[in-house]
């Protein structure tokens, strides 16, 4: 399957879920509508696309833009040895997207990391707790609005002079 036919096939299968298509160093990049993320990735996981591996799931904070948090999904097909990148933007007020926890097991921890760092809620996640920071940490440190030197120590420190 060449890249042109691949993208045509994905567009035909997903229909209006695909908002835009781009190319990044030879790999296709699809921009999805946020409400279509889960059905679209569920379709891409099965034949004929067969993207069996969720390589990465992360997020970017574009503080100035309207769709502030851009979720980035990286998929990989073992049978065809090709990669696919998908993006979906969610708004700053109450950012939320459907969880992929039922599709890929590793999505659970990746989504917990994005929740911890960016505060994006994943609806349908079985255990959406912080994963890198600790219980009692306030805020989401990789948001652009987090003060860059704000520390939240767990034990009392000696006073700074």
């Amino acid at each position: 399957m060449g890249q042109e036919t691949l993208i045509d096939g994905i567009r035909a299968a997903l229909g209006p879920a695909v908002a835009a298509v781009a190319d990044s160093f030879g790999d296709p990049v699809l921009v999805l509508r946020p409400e279509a993320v889960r059905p679209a990735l569920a379709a891409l996981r099965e034949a004929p696309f067969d993207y069996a591996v969720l390589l990465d799931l992360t997020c970017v904070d574009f503080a100035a833009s309207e769709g502030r948090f851009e979720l980035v999904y990286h998929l990989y097909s073992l049978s065809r040895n090709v990669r696919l990148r998908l993006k979906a933007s969610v708004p700053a007020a109450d950012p939320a997207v459907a969880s992929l926890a039922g599709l890929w097991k590793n999505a659970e921890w990746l989504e917990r990391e994005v929740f911890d760092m960016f505060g994006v809620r994943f609806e349908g996640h079985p255990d959406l707790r912080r994963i890198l920071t600790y219980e009692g940490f306030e805020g989401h440190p990789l948001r652009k609005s987090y003060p860059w030197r704000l520390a939240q120590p767990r034990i009392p420190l000696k006073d700074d002079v």
Partner: protein
Amino acid sequence: MSGLDFVTTRLETALGWGRKFSLFHYPFITACCGMEYMSAACAHFDIDRFGAGLTRFSPRQADLLLVVGTITHKLAPVLRTVYDQMLEPKWVIAFGACTVSGGIYQNYAVVQGIDRIIPVDVYIPGCPPRPEMVLDGLLKLQDKIQHQKQDWRWAKKP
């Protein structure tokens, strides 16, 4: 033993001499400085030449805590517990820029120097420090131990 029938010394000097050449160290390694620790500890630079070659893997058996690598706020209570578990007398070396001052990290996660959590005897800067610096820091600690005044409160009768 001709000519050496008896030797005089001060108790503090003898204790310091004994302690400085029998350091049992506990390496608390969290980051890339661990590679330099391994280099300093293994045969090429050989920290055992200075009597600090016996690595203990329990803080209860150690008297020198080597804090090697970045300490985060999440890890800080663990480091405090490890320090509290060590028996007196005990010493601490801050190994590398991250433990000295937080190093290149000044953000939500990293403690800005382990001396905010536990007392430190010798600071070894560098990112990472070369093994020669580690050995130099160890020699400075030995010098400190040799001249340390002993705490005799435990020996005094009430």
